[in-house]
């Protein structure tokens, strides 16, 4: 019983889900007796993508909890299994919980599963906290790397990759990325062509080569994926900062989507009369957003300005379908109508939900705050007045708008101006520190180190890239777009422009001129297949080429939408079908936050 929204793509992502399930349940079944499971909160919600709670119950699980400080709810089982990421803060919580359980006199056996693996530091911490003994040899590893999000989308859900590699010189999560990719190859065959840009991409491809040497899996299936494109986020820092204007992107910008789940106040949905509000708590409603819902699959990638029209069309269609019952009907026709009723009702409910969500989004996009910021962004994209302190950014600081919003805009200006004038940068920094507090100097330092905030150099990279790759497009329609720039209304994501070139047979060579402006290196390798012969590259011309684009350091919904848009273009010179992988789904806020210094710890 795999999830329907995962199959149906060019590559059957539900196999990734099956693979993960097999691992988890094998570990669980190894333990005899009843079990309670405690997930760390982040993992708990992403786990739902792998297996529903009910499925855990089939494997003798009594209850599933989220890891919190304090005492667990009373629920006795023979075993208590903590499943966590290898993070020190989580170890502390586990230790606290274990101590409380022991104090309570619980006779349960403790287990600890690490995803994807235990680290040296975690083990030391367990020892320091005095609970290593409680787990004896009940510490296990669950090497899950990729979580299936949709029939063309997988994410590792590790938000720290970019910071770790580019700021702290730590390649660990790149190594994990390579392992995830190797797992994919074991399911879908060796990917013959590996293309990439940026230092993290090179690192991942090197790790892949090494790991592949050690892996002597004889039954690797024939290739289903023709090319892998590795994109290091540092190659395109601008795109995640730009406000996403697709439906799904805007929902994420305004309300945040976590692991395909959108949580909104339930009061907006009171009129709905669902039979099973299974995900609803007292005052919020969770809505699952994936291609399993026909309407959402239809509108998620559209520019928001085209969504209203699509919803109206759908409304007409549905009311027509319901209207059919009034006509004269034979019994046979009536039967057919009734059999279609559940589907029609589901559609109607889905329409009601998305109309509500769209109204909420509209409220956000109609606000002056939003419009002014967007206008400023578009000015910056078009390199208008980027050389001096921008009055709108000054205003935002004076009004003490959210810190990340200000940083987003300042970084955007630094990037579109190919570096700020030293005076302007110092001015911004002083303003920010005086308004938001000196302790933010650390975050500013990080942004400088990551290349998001920088001083002008001789080269005007953005100006050249903008021209050479047509990064700003004025005459594109938002409703019936002809170019990917519709996802930001003016700006075509640099990352996806690069992909457009890299899928071509001589892509990297044709890009030669602009590659010099991007953080290198760029490479285009042929991977030998298992048998040692290199696979033929030309696929039959009718069937589209399948390309896996993997973002190292995160990607946005707008980028995904742009790739889906390209998949749908049949008349384009390259007939390509994209599958997308990422270390994390991000937006401008979460990206900036991942680089911020958390001062509470």
């Amino acid at each position, binding site marked *: 019983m795999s999830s329907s929204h995962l199959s149906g793509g060019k590559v059957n992502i539900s196999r990734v889900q099956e693979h993960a399930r097999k691992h988890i349940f094998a570990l669980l079944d190894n333990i005899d007796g009843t079990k309670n499971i405690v997930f760390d909160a982040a993992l708990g919600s992403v786990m739902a993508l792998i297996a529903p709670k009910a499925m855990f119950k089939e494997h003798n699980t009594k209850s599933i909890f989220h890891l919190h400080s304090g005492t667990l709810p009373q629920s006795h089982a023979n075993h208590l299994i903590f499943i966590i990421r290898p993070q*020190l803060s989580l170890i502390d919580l586990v230790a606290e919980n274990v101590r409380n359980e022991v104090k309570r006199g619980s006779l349960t056996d403790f287990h600890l599963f690490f995803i994807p693996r235990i680290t*040296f530091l975690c083990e030391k911490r367990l020892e320091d906290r005095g609970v290593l003994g409680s787990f004896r040899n009940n510490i296990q590893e669950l090497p899950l790397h990729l979580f299936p999000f949709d029939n063309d989308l997988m994410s590792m859900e590790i938000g720290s990759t970019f910071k770790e590699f580019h700021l702290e010189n*730590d390649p*660990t999560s790149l190594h994990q990325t390579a392992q995830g990719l190797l797992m994919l190859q074991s399911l879908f065959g060796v990917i013959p062509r590996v293309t990439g840009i940026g230092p993290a991409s090179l690192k991942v491809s090197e790790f892949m080569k090494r790991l592949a040497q050690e892996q002597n899996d004889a039954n690797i299936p024939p290739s289903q994926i023709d090319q892998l494109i590795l994109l290091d986020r540092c190659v395109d820092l601008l795109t995640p900062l730009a406000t996403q204007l697709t439906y799904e992107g805007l929902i994420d910008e305004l309300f945040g989507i976590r692991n395909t789940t959108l949580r909104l106040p339930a009061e907006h949905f009171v009129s709905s009369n669902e039979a099973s509000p299974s995900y609803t708590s007292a005052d919020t409603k969770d809505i699952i957003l994936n291609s399993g819902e026909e309407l959402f699959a239809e509108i998620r990638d559209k520019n928001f300005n085209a969504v209203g029209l699509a919803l109206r069309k759908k409304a007409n269609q549905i009311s027509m379908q319901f209207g059919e019952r009034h006509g004269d009907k034979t019994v046979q026709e009536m039967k057919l109508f009734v059999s279609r009723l559940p589907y029609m009702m589901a559609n109607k409910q889905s329409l009601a939900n998305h109309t509500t969500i769209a109204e909420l989004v509209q409220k956000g996009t109609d606000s002056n705050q939003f419009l002014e910021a967007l206008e400023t962004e578009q000015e910056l994209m078009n390199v208008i007045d980027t050389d001096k302190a921008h009055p709108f950014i*000054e205003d935002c600081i004076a009004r*003490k708008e959210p810190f990340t919003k200000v940083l987003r805009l300042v970084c955007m200006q630094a990037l579109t101006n190919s570096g700020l004038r030293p005076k302007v940068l*110092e001015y911004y920094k002083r303003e920010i520190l005086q308004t938001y507090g*000196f302790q933010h*100097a650390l975050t500013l*330092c990080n942004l400088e180190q990551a290349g998001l905030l920088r001083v002008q150099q001789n080269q005007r990279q953005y100006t050249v890239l903008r021209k050479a790759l047509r990064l700003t497009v004025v005459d594109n329609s938002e409703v019936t777009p002809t170019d990917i720039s519709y996802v930001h209304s003016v700006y075509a994501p640099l990352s996806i422009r690069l992909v457009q070139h890299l899928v071509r047979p001589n892509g990297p060579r044709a890009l030669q001129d602009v590659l010099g402006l991007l953080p290198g290196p760029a490479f285009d390798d042929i991977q030998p297949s298992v048998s040692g012969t290199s696979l033929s590259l030309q696929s039959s011309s009718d069937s589209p080429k399948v390309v896996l684009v993997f973002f190292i350091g995160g990607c946005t919904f707008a980028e995904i939408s742009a790739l889906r848009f390209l998949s749908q273009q049949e008349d384009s010179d390259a007939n390509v079908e994209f599958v997308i992988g990422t270390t994390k789904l991000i937006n401008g806020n979460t990206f900036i936050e991942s680089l911020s210094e958390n001062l509470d710890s």
Partner: protein
Amino acid sequence: MKPAKVMFSVNSSLFLTQFQDHFIMARQDSEADDFWNSSSIKSFNFDDEETGGALFGVSKSGTARLSQQVRASLPGEDFGGTSDSLTGSTSTTPSNTAPPLRSLISENCLASILEADLPDAVYGGRTKKNDMKPEEEIRMLKRQVQERWDAPPVDLTIKNIFLGRPHSLEPYRSLSSKHLLLDAAINLGDGNAILEVVLFLVRTLKKSLVHQILAANPVAAAHYARYLATRLQATELTDLLVMLGKSREAAMKQYQLCTATQSVQRQIQKLKLCISSHFVQGDPNLKKIAQNHVALLEWEQAVGAMDSEDLVGKSAVGCLAHACRLHWDDPRGSPTNPFSLAQLHGVCEKQVQWTILSERASQQAWPDIDSVFITKNWIGSGTKLKLALPIEKVVIQLHSKGAPADVLSKYLGFVDGQERRIALAQQLGCHKVVIDGYAALRDRQGLQGYKATLHPGSESFLYAEGVLRVSTTKWKN
């Protein structure tokens, strides 16, 4: 899947320590002599339990029986000798350089090690112990003893770390083998393996040598730095960063540690110390930031106590707002005076004005605002605006704070261009300014149109009628 890691009891690791000391004395590694940390005994402390213990961790059960068999096979066979038939081809280094086992360790000692209470015997291991024939297990044990003398290839060990298999770093005694080990770990790219190797080097090498190696390996240095940071070993961390020539990072790390301090008093002390030891050279901007931070904290503490309000953690602009609220009339030059505070921190003119405007307007202190923004010229007749902010923003802010009509009119009067002024006044509902604006433009139709939107009989309505009735106006339409 990784088998559960084996933990040695203190008891058996004691044996191991003896074992190793024996060995070190016997081996006399010539290369090792130059760099070996003078106190080799100290370097084997109980912290080594894990790495040491993992050595024999593969042995799973029936230790007593097995050790008997091992013992039985000992006479007549040199462990370190040319026993290739037993050790197999796993060892890549020539094994005949290693001295005979019994010259290093007494039979009893070896037996004790083998009989030591292996935790697996207690907890039960997860490997295929049951499938293993005794002969095979003997061979395996022998191979392990062999590997103890001749370090396995570094790549294998690193892979074992990565895969969570039992492994030991102790056999890598020469400096060159340690180098290779580190290179292999960095090459593999797994941070966990890198850190374990780095900590091994730190434990077994002189500090100066460790620093030399770290300086040549930025990835390793980064891992060690992060390790020190998570364990809050601040002094060592800064030493390391300074040694690596990263004084800016060192300064920032120190600064971060300072800001994480809970008590304000200690935070101030720490920051001062940090400035004098780390911020003196290098980026003057950073130094300025840190100094301002201290000044602000001191201000917050002093003024907070005076006003019995918790100001700590507020930003400079936040404090300025506080000063505007409660210390507006304090004499210039007093540290609590808003202008003195703004000057101390070099808050830019725009921010100062905006803060004054917002705060004094909230107090409905309109004359205060005038005193800052409006200057009389030297004759005393005309007035001039001294403003770093866009006038529209000022008027809107005044309006949002509930400024009365006459104040708004006054500031609307400074808006350049009648059209802009009318539009803004209309937006804010300042009817009189709109009406006067139309009159100044001699736009009768505009005025009539506007009058139609007003409530008939209201003051503004009557005022508009009055203006329209003035006979001297030469309307343009």
